[in-house]
C-alpha cells in the first residue's frame, strides 16, 4: 500500500527515456511502452529510490502552483497504477 512515506524505485528492466522523434517521455518496460504526458513525466522522473511520495507531491505542487488537495490524489493514483503494473517497487526501509 502506498503511504506518504513510501519510497519507490523502478523494477528491473524499466527505464525512462526521451523520444526525440515524438518529443515525448517514454517508460520502456518488458513488452510494454508507456508514453507519458507532462505531469506523468514530472512524477516518473522523481521516482528514484530516494524521494518519498510526500516529497514528490510537494515538488509537483511547486511545479504547478496547485494545492496538494488537488495534486495529492493525482500523484498517488498515478503511482499506485505503476505499482499495480509491477513497474515500480517499494524500497524496503
Amino acid at each position, binding site marked *: 500500500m502506498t503511504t506518504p512515506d513510501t519510497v519507490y524505485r523502478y523494477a528491473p528492466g*524499466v527505464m525512462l527515456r526521451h523520444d526525440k522523434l515524438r518529443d515525448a517521455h517514454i517508460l520502456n518496460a518488458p513488452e510494454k511502452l508507456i508514453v507519458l504526458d507532462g505531469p506523468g513525466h514530472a512524477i516518473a522522473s522523481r521516482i528514484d529510490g530516494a524521494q518519498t511520495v510526500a516529497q514528490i507531491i510537494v515538488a509537483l505542487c511547486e511545479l504547478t502552483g496547485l494545492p496538494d488537495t488537488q495534486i495529492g490524489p493525482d500523484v498517488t493514483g498515478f503511482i499506485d497504477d505503476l505499482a499495480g503494473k509491477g513497474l515500480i517497487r517499494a524500497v524496503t526501509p
Partner: protein
Amino acid sequence: MNQNHADPPLAILAELTHRCPLRCPYCSNPTALVGRSGELSTAEWADVFRQAADMGALQVHMSGGEPAARKDLEKLCQAAVDAGLYINLITSGLMIDGARLDRLAAIGVPHVQLSVQGSDAAMCDAVGGYDGAFAIKQDFARAVVARGISLTLNAVLHRANCHQAGDMITMARDLGAARIEVAHTQYYGWGLLNRDGLLPSRDQLDDVTRIVEQARKDSGADLQIDYVVPDYYAETPKACMAGWGRRFLTISPEGKVLPCHAAETVDHLTFDTVRDKTLSEIWYDSPAFNTYRGTDWMPEPCQSCDLKEVDWGGCRCQALALVGDAGATDPVCSKSGQREKLLDALTDAAVSPKAGPDIWTYRQF
C-alpha cells in the same frame, strides 16, 4: 490525413534465425524454414536496427527460432543498444551459459522472455523434443534473475499441458520472474499443422481461465500474469498485431519485412527485403503493408461495424488459412458468417483426447 495514414512503428520483431535446439510442435515459424546460409549478416542486422530506431521504433524483440543460435547475438544486442532500442530477448534458454549471460547483461539487455513447455521435466522435455531441457531452463531462469535482468516466463498452453497452468504460475513465482504470459497456442505455422492435436476443449479452457483469475488475486503486483486465450473460442477476433502495419513489423531471418510473423502465408503479396529497399520505403510505401492497412480494405460486416478500429477486422493470416481469402472478415467473428470453418476443429477438440508425441509433427528443417 487519409484513413490509411501510417504512424512510425513502435517495435520490431527481429527473427534472427529459424535455427533452434527445440522442436515444439506449435512453433509459429513457417513450415518452410530458412537455413543458416540465407540469414542476414551481423552488419545487415545492425543496419536494420539503426534504420528502425531512426524511423521511431523504441523496442526490438530479439527472437527466432533461438536467437542465441547466432554466434553473433552479443554483437547484435550491442548494435541494438547503440541504436537506442530497448531489447526483449526471447529465448529457449538452452544456448546461453553463464559467461554469455554475463556479456548480455553488461551490454544492457534489460529483459529476457524464457519459453517453458511444462511444469515438470517429463512434460517440458516431451513437448520441446529435447531431453534435459527442463533442468537447463530452470538454471537459466535463476541466472537471469541473479543478474538483475527482468524475467518473463512464456508458458505456451495446449491440450496436453494446460492442466499444468497453475503449476507453471507457481514456478514463475518461485524462480523470481516478474511476469508470466500464460498463452494458449496460436494456430499458425507448425501450430496450424498440429492444430487437431493441440486445441484444448472448452472445459480445459474454462479451467485455465479460473486458475489464472485466482492466481492474479493471490499474487497481486509481484507477479504480472498476462493471459492469451485461443481465439477460436472467442466471439470477436483478436486485434492481430494491433492492426496490419499500424504499430509493429517483423523481419524474417533472410530480411523479408512482414506485417506479422505469419504474413508470408499471404502469398498473393510480395514482401520486400531489407537487402532491396530501406525499411522506411517498405513500411510506408509497399503494397504488402498498404493492402490491409487501416480500414479501407475491409469488407462488410467490418466496414459498417463499430469495432473496426478496435480489432481491425482480426487476423489476415487466419482469414486466409480458414476461409481462403486474406481479405475476408476473420472467421472467429460471430458476424463473419464463417464460424462453421472453426467448428470441426472445436468439435474434434471436444471429443478427441488425443494429444502428445505420438500424433504431433515436430518442427524440423
